[in-house]
């Protein structure tokens, strides 16, 4: 169990923080305001291997361990939630399953360009009628000679607007008893794949979230990830790591809220003294900091289990649940500390407030995380 980050992880945190402070902090407000993904910055990040965090060097990745991965996501998200989201989703639920379940030829064809950041990845499970109940997806993949024909609609696709490769979950066996899903890697330029307009979201606005529609989209058999019918297994294995990513993202936003609040509380004078000198404000800050530290330890716990290839489904659910609720709470209290100024766009806390909320929703709502945790308690 890693409680104190090792030498390497301390340097990784510092390196990422320096990059984030130099490049992302100055860009974050504009990304949010214009709802624009900074392609140039993403290229710079690609050159520094942010798109292949846990992918081994043999496939052009950085080869980081999971604890380091969590630290990277935290630091990026602290500067920009939207960029943290891009990196987290690309790495943990798009590149990772291609690495884990892909055949060698697929790793060569798909994974290497993903790790290099030449192709940004998506994870397309959610549909208009299938959110928390992922098993009710309606997208189909029907065999056609040596390939499949895909039809259906995917919504709220993170990174959708800039993606090069998309992991599409589709039904390959529709029979009531033997209902089975499979995952396909579908190139964005493939005929029959269409991207809709960017969603007008409350937060994470710098991420080009959009719908993806498949209309008689034909893919060769070589684009089937893993085996036919493996879709549910891939989804579950992928989301275990995904939750660490989202947890780390929430943690980064929470940390940003804390740092902004500590700074503001020492600058703002009321009744002739700094508001930081009032007990009520100190209580707010102390509680925020304590919960954030607890969230960080839960994330380190889950990711160090992952590093040792031990089961971590419950631990990653706990980390994601606690960190995302901590972020929402830290944003709410942080905004309260900022008072009226916090409600204006002059300070970043209102962006953190909007960005934090979705962490309780995507990649498994807090309610779904509680189901995962509760089931793990009762199945013993």
């Amino acid at each position, binding site marked *: 169990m890693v409680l104190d980050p090792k*030498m*390497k992880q301390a*340097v990784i945190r510092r*390196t990422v923080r320096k990059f984030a402070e130099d490049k992302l902090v100055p860009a974050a407000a504009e990304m949010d305001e214009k709802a624009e993904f900074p392609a140039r910055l993403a290229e710079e990040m690609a050159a*520094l*291997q942010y798109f292949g965090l846990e992918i081994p*060097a043999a496939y052009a990745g*950085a080869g*980081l361990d999971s604890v380091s991965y969590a630290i*990277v996501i935290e630091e990026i998200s602290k500067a920009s939630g939207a960029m943290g989201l891009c990196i987290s989703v690309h790495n943990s639920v798009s590149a990772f399953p291609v690495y884990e379940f892909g055949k060698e030829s697929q790793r060569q064809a798909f994974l290497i360009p993903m790790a290099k950041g030449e192709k940004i990845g998506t994870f397309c499970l959610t549909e208009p009628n299938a959110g928390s109940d992922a098993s009710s997806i309606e997208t189909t993949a029907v065999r056609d000679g040596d390939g499949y024909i895909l039809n259906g609609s995917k919504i709220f696709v993170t990174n959708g607007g800039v993606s090069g490769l998309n992991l599409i979950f589709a039904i390959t066996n529709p029979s009531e008893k033997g209902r089975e899903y499979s995952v396909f890697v579908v190139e964005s330029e493939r005929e029959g794949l269409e991207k809709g307009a960017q969603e007008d979201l409350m937060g994470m606005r710098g991420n080009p979230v959009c719908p993806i529609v498949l209309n008689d989209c034909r893919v060769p058999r070589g684009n089937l990830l893993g085996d036919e019918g493996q879709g549910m297994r891939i989804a579950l294995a992928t989301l275990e790591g995904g939750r660490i990513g989202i947890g780390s993202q929430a943690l980064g936003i929470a940390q940003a809220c804390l740092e902004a609040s500590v700074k503001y509380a020492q600058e703002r004078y009321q009744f002739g003294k700094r508001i930081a000198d009032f007990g009520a404000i100190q209580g707010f800050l102390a509680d925020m900091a304590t919960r954030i530290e607890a969230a960080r330890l839960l994330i380190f716990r889950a990711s160090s289990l992952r590093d040792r290839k031990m089961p971590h489904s419950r631990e990653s659910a706990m980390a994601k649940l606690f960190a995302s609720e901590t972020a929402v709470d830290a944003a709410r209290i942080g905004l309260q500390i900022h008072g009226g100024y916090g409600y204006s766009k002059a300070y970043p806390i209102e962006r953190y407030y909007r960005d934090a909320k979705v962490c309780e929703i995507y990649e498994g709502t807090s309610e779904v995380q509680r189901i995962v945790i509760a089931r793990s308690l009762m199945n013993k």
Partner: protein
Amino acid sequence: MNIVVCIKQVPDTPNIRIDRERMTIIRDGVESIINPLDHIALEAALDLKQKEGGKISVLTMGPSQSEEALREAIAAGADEAILLTDPGFAGADTLATSKVIASAISRMDPFPDLILCGKQTIDSDTGHVGPQLAEELNLPQVCGVTEIHVEMNALVVKQLSDGFQNTYRVSFPALLTVSQGLNVPRHIPLGDLEKAFSEGGVLRWGLKDLNLRAEEVGFSGSATTVVRLYRPPQKRKGEIVSGSSQTLAEHLIGKLVSLSILDEDEAE
């Protein structure tokens, strides 16, 4: 061109605490970084290597944990790292430190063409080690350089002093200490960090390896001792202005214009 870059691991400044009994900076449990000017020296070395080829060795004297700084330098592109570490080195002043580093550099075969140091460190700020090292090694030195070029087997360097810019031509081998503004250190790819921390590559040299006697180094080899270490009281020359918001704003804008922070058009 073979270059040695001398670096020091220093506490990240906002966190500095002082041990009042031992008159030293408390380093335990404090996050440490590569001294920012040493980072600039390393970047200059990487830049020269790109143009001229050769090898970069980074060198530091310090406790075991200084290995972190050396590995970070390897990730940034250094070829070799040497940690000068020995219980006998503890308590060294800048003279004793220079002696150990000089002895290590003399051992290098071939002797380096160029030695680069930061002009000073953010923790002790003396700026002694670079010049003392050059004296120990009997090398030409230029301190606080802001530009480095290689021209016809010599270095042409620029230095700012007393508001004048000096240009020097320096023969090899030489020692330079570098100033802020020479370059902006690059961001390190994450995979290079991973590799630098998972592979070997840090040499450790102690008292015996360097053929030094215990009385020449550390506390006993030091020519100076710190008699008192304290935070000087801050003297703020404040000016208290009173009046309506309108008057205060006008006064403030006037000040900013007079200091050339705002120009008159902006002030309007």
